[in-house]
């Protein structure tokens, strides 16, 4: 039925029927805003209407508050062409019509005049057209009630315009009418509801009233509002039923207490199920009828609203609520009837949802449909058990009867159901018909429920259905399928740490495994269950015995042994490694004690216990070497030597979550202690960069919990390959704590880590997971090392002690182990006289009294060889050798300068060390000799200075100076020592000087002198004297010129006075004959006055060139002028003489002699140290020019200020 509002039409029926189609079509085209009373939000609605001819019967009867059957609006149609016709006929018709309406107090009417636009209009006389007449006659107050439509059947703008106006007007007026009528209706409805406590009130009656409102809303496509009506009815009814519990039973509810004979499920195929509605109308509906109808209406509206998920959401609460209401009303239904109803209703909803929604809504409704599937499955299961359809049952005749009864109660809509394939009704009938069909449907439903749960991510719910399915499969005898479901569930319960659930599942799984004859897994489960304290003691004993049986049986069969997890049956709580030393060495004994906890309720005797150790070969450690230099720059270094841990997954205790409450999620296990290492980093300059502690396995424990979701982890028993297996036979482990001790002799080097414990029982082996934290001991492996260290700062020239340290490491030194030293030249190594070495333990402190050993040496051609005695492992042998570095003749080697030390290298060869390590030593010179030449006129003096450098005192004896390279043996040069010949002592910062005089007459014709200074030195207190040589060469030592300067008093005064010019007389005398030097008569000489410019001011030129005759003993005199600046005894200005060579450049005014051999600059350091200040200037060698007036002073009076000092004597 279409619930469109009725609109009556009076007047020209023929005219209207020609326009009817157009109007119906145009009316719903555009939605119009519906402003509602009571402050309800306005809505956009599409108005549709059912136009019927006006009859008196249509008008509402008194007291009839029905909404749907009464017309909402009345129209009068006319095409009266002119006023005359109007006056004669139409006016009366309208009057009559309006009178009828007035009787019923109806104000919702409208008059439509269909006019021809071509009709000529009388513009001159207004209000003479038909429409004007109608307006003035009937619509004087309501002008909008009258409308003209022009040429409705012609497609013209004017026609269109008038159509729009008409439809618009009609819609508005219609909505006004709705508002008025609905308002009245609602008032009435509310009044009825208020009377609900009265005795003769009937819910069904009220239901129909409010439903009518819902229908109107539905008709207006206001499904939301329609739904509200049903929800209100739902709530009202629910409240009534709940009130029954309080003893409040209204009369009308009695009709719902009638026994149900029909338990048809929901029927959602039609929006309105009129069969059920009729029952309600007849007041013969049962609770199920009413509920089914009400819910089907809600569903229908929700489907209209495109909200299938809400249907799904409401389904289960609806079903549960109905079941509770049935209980409250104490309705007696045959056993299983409710289950049938619930099952069918659920399936109906599910089918409907699938049909009425598109794929985009699957996500939205899946969370709800999953539960509905699961619920339907539950109900089917219930029916299956009830009717004896489970695989392990055979339906009795009683149960067969029950099925027939149940089928009878759901037959009522069979005729209709025929048309729908796969209807819930049919499905249920089929499922209940036979065991095979039931099985098929049950499995299908279970899969669907599980699948949907998995799809929406509710794994736990899916697993639980899986567990039920497993039970079902067990009944079917399909243990294999059951096993997979159970083990999935078990894994999850274990992982999440639900002990009771895991235990329960494990028990089921054990039966399943026994059924499958999977002894490996069965034994595993038995061991788990036997050690599970959540199980009853009887169960535990049962599984304990089963375990023993299985283990014994599999050995009888001769099968290969079965490998099982040791945990949680036995757990290792602690591992103690007891060694005699910190690092056991080869041959020592190691005790390993395991503390184990047995979770079994009884003793268990194991045939064999094997402890598996893994050996890691280690590179011989370098500790002993680095001990000597602990701060290796720039490197990370672990200070202590902790056992090295490898990153590996913790597999321990995955099963322990079975053990009950304290078993947390397995991956969360943190060992009872953490391995933490101290670490530091040293900068390259030796200072500490940082220090801290580090947990090498931190990343393992800090790993994200939820990212390691692997189910397989820790499930596999792995028997580790061990390098060392320790065994104990026949050991009995009591419930609770046990101690198992292993003892072993160390036979090989390496890091031994306890990895696994394997318990053997008959043919079964229980292997522990990798033992964590790893307990290990290291059989130390250390190579011998040899180091050389000086005992003090080394001095050259005398024997010095160098310590040789031999660390044996884990080697035992055989007798006569040789160390052969080789050195750089000029360094000799010698063994000391006593040849005793000290032996200490390598890792003990120094205060332990060392053992004394003797050793042998051989000295072959300056190569020292030590032959060591037998030394045990981990000992340190210390012995000393003497090293003497010769002091080289520095003059000879040409290494003159400030070098005060010499570097030597010592390398050694030994079977103990691989290559030939080299050690560098630095020897400091104890003293240095320097030479100097002094001149006094013609006389020459050689001065040798010995400067002490070392804090040690040295005695110097027998100084001697010899001239080594005389040109022929006839010439002799006498050296007259001017110093005392007694022994001298030299030490740091002290000098000893020796002086020899040379006789100038003997030096004639000698261009240079090669001198060799030698002395005998000995360290004070030592008897041993060692020669010291120092060679040097004297060049250009002959005096060529004497320079004499004198400052004379200015003429007219007795003394020089500051500020007054005085003459400086310069006398240059050539002392040697020229024969051997120059061919020319004279040489140009340059003089420079080197006066201290704070004392002297040189006036005029301060330098000049003189031509010096080459003949001996000629004198040149130069007169200069100087001015003393201050008073006092001033040193006479020094005049420096240098050889002058003229440059060939014509620009230069100076002359430039050619062919002059250059003198080395270093022979004569000039006063200003800058070298010749003029081009062509060459300084004379030291000793070639003798300044006679050196250190002379001249007395200068202070300047006369010009002021007079008047002293008056009385």
């Amino acid at each position, binding site marked *: 039925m279409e619930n469109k509002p009725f609109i009556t039409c009076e007047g020209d029926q023929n005219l209207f029927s020609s326009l009817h189609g157009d109007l119906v079509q145009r009316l719903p085209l555009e939605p119009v805003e519906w402003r509602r009373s009571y402050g309800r939000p306005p809505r956009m609605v599409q108005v549709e209407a059912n136009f019927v001819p006006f009859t008196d019967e249509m008008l509402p009867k008194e007291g009839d508050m029905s909404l749907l059957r009464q017309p909402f609006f009345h129209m009068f149609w006319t095409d009266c062409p002119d006023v005359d016709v109007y006056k004669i006929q139409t006016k009366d018709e309208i009057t009559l019509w309006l009178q009828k309406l007035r009787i019923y107090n109806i104000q919702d009417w409208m008059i439509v005049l269909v006019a021809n636009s071509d009709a000529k209009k009388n513009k001159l006389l207004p209000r003479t057209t038909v429409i004007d007449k109608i307006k003035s006659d009937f619509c004087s107050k309501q002008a909008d009630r009258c409308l003209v439509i022009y040429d409705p059947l012609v497609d013209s703008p004017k026609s269109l315009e008038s159509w729009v106006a008409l439809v618009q007007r009609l819609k508005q007026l219609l909505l006004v009418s709705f508002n008025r009528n609905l308002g009245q209706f609602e008032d009435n409805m509310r009044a009825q509801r208020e009377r609900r406590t009265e005795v003769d009130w009937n819910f069904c009656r009220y239901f129909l009233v409010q439903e009518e409102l819902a229908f109107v809303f539905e008709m207006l496509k206001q499904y939301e509002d329609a739904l509200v009506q049903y929800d209100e009815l739902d709530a009202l009814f629910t409240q009534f039923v709940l009130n029954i519990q309080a003893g409040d039973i209204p009369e009308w509810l009695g009709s719902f207490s009638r026994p149900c004979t029909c338990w048809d499920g929901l029927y959602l195929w039609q929006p309105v199920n009129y069969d059920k509605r009729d029952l309600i109308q007849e007041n013969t509906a049962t609770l199920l009828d009413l509920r089914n109808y009400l819910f089907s209406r809600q569903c229908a509206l929700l489907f209209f609203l495109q909200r299938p998920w809400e249907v799904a959401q409401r389904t289960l609460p609806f079903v549960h609520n109905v079941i509770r209401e049935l209980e409250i009303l104490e309705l007696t239904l045959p056993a299983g009837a409710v289950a049938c109803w619930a099952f069918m209703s659920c399936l109906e909803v599910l089918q409907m949802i699938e049909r009425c929604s598109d794929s985009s809504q699957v996500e939205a409704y899946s969370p709800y449909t999953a539960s509905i599937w699961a619920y339907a499955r539950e109900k089917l299961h219930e029916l299956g058990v009830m009717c004896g359809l489970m695989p392990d049952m055979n339906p009795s005749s009683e149960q067969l009867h029950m099925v027939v009864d149940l089928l009878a109660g759901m037959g009522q809509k069979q005729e209709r159901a025929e048309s729908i394939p796969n209807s819930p009704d049919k499905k249920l009938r089929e499922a209940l018909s036979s065991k095979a069909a039931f099985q098929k449907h049950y499995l299908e439903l279970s899969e669907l429920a599980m699948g949907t749960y998995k799809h929406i991510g509710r794994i*736990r719910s899916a697993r*639980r259905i899986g567990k039920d399915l497993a039970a079902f499969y067990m009944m079917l005898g399909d243990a294999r399928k059951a096993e997979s479901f159970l083990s999935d569930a078990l894994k999850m319960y274990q992982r*999440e740490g639900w002990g009771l659930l895991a235990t329960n599942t494990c028990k089921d799984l054990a039966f399943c495994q026994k059924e499958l004859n999977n002894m490996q897994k069965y034994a595993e489960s038995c061991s788990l269950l036997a050690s599970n304290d959540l199980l009853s003691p009887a169960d535990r004993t049962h599984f304990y015995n089963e375990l023993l049986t299985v283990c014994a049986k599999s050995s009888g069969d001769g099968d290969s042994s079965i490998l099982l997890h040791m945990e949680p049956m036995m757990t290792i709580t602690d591992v103690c490694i007891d060694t005699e030393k910190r690092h056991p060495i080869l041959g020592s004994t190691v005790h390993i004690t395991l503390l184990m906890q047995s979770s079994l309720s009884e003793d268990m005797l194991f045939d064999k216990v094997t402890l598996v150790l893994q050996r890691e070969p280690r590179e011989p450690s370098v500790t002993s070497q680095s001990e000597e230099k602990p701060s290796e720059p720039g490197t990370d270094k672990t200070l202590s030597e902790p056992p090295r841990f490898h990153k590996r997954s913790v597999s321990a205790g995955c099963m322990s979550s079975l053990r009950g*409450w304290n078993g947390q*999620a397995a991956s969360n296990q943190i060992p009872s202690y953490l391995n933490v290492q101290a670490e530091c980093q040293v900068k390259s300059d030796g200072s500490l960069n940082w220090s801290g502690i580090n947990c090498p396995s931190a990343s393992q424990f800090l790993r994200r919990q939820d990212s390691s979701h692997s189910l397989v982890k820790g499930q596999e028993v792995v028997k580790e390959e061990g390098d060392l297996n320790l065994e104990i036979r026949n050991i009995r482990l009591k419930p609770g704590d046990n101690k198992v001790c292993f003892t072993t002799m160390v036979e090989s080097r390496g890091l031994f880590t306890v990895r696994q414990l394997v318990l053997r029982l008959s043919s079964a082996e229980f292997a522990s997971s990798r033992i964590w934290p790893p307990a290990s001991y290291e059989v130390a492996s250390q190579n011998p090392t040899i180091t050389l260290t000086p005992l003090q700062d080394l001095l050259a020239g005398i024997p010095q002690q160098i310590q040789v340290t031999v660390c044996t490491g884990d080697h035992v030194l055989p007798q006569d182990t040789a160390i052969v030293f080789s050195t750089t030249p000029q360094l000799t190594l010698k063994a000391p006289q006593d040849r005793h070495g000290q032996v200490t333990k390598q890792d003990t402190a120094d205060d332990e009294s060392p053992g004394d050993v003797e050793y042998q040496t051989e000295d072959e051609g300056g190569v020292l060889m030590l032959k060591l005695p037998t030394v045990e492992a981990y000992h340190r042998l210390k012995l000393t050798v003497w090293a003497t570095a010769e002091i080289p003749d520095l003059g000879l080697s040409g290494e003159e300068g400030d070098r005060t030390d010499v570097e030597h290298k010592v390398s050694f060869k030994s079977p103990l060390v691989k290559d030939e390590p080299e050690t560098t030593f630095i020897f400091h010179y104890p003293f240095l000799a320097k030479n100097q030449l002094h001149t006094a006129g013609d006389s020459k003096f050689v001065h040798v200075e010995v400067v002490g450098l070392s804090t040690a005192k040295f005695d110097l004896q027998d100084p001697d100076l010899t001239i080594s390279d005389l040109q022929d043996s006839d010439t002799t040069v006498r050296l007259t020592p001017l110093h005392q010949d007694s022994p001298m002592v030299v030490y740091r910062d002290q000098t000893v000087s020796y002086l020899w005089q040379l006789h100038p007459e003997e030096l004639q014709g000698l261009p240079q002198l090669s001198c060799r200074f030698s002395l005998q030195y000995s360290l004070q207190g030592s008897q041993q004297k060692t020669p010291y040589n120092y060679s040097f060469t004297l060049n250009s030592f002959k005096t060529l010129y004497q320079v004499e300067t004198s400052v004379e008093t200015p003429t007219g005064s007795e003394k020089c006075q500051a500020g007054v010019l005085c003459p400086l007389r310069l006398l240059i005398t050539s002392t040697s004959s020229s024969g051997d030097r120059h061919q020319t008569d004279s040489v140009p000489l340059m003089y420079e006055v080197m006066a201290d410019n704070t004392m002297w001011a040189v006036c005029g030129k301060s330098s000049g060139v003189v031509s010096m005759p080459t003949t001996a003993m000629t004198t040149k005199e130069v007169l200069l002028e100087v001015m003393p600046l201050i008073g006092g005894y001033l040193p006479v200005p020094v005049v420096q003489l240098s050889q002058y060579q003229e440059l060939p450049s014509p620009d230069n005014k100076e002359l430039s002699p050619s062919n002059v051999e250059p003198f080395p600059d270093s022979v004569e350091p000039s006063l200003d140290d800058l070298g010749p200040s003029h081009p062509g200037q060459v300084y004379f060698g030291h000793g070639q020019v003798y300044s006679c007036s050196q250190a002379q002073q001249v007395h200068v009076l202070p300047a006369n200020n010009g002021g007079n000092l008047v002293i008056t004597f009385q």
Partner: protein
Amino acid sequence: MTGQRSSKMAVCVAVISKENYPLYIQTIPTEDDLKFHYTVHTSLDVVEEKINNVGKTTNDLRELYLGLLYPTEDYKVYGYVTNTKIKFVVVVESSNTALRDNEIRTMFRKLHNAYTDLVCNPFYTPGDRITSRVFEKVVNAMMLQDS
């Protein structure tokens, strides 16, 4: 039978750790433990769903009460999650119509307070199974007859 039952407040109270293992489960003694263990465990599916959805859809992260997790024919399961992701699950009988949302909220608030007190105890390590008698008393009061 219904009358006597309906006066009980809760039939099962569970505290579940962040990692979803049970810290505490108490059921009324007459009932089968296992059944409630399954019920509570299954409810975790919905708890997780709700927790995940809270982050996505609403900004109201402060609402700890998760509401009705799922109804069964006989029971209603309610959930609550603390800021530290400790979950509380309370199972009440469907027939107990006296318990409205408000009562359930009150129950959870009490439970949360009791749990907070428990965690404040320095001798309790968070994550351990709850054995506190004070806590048990609070829970038992919830499961006793509501006089």
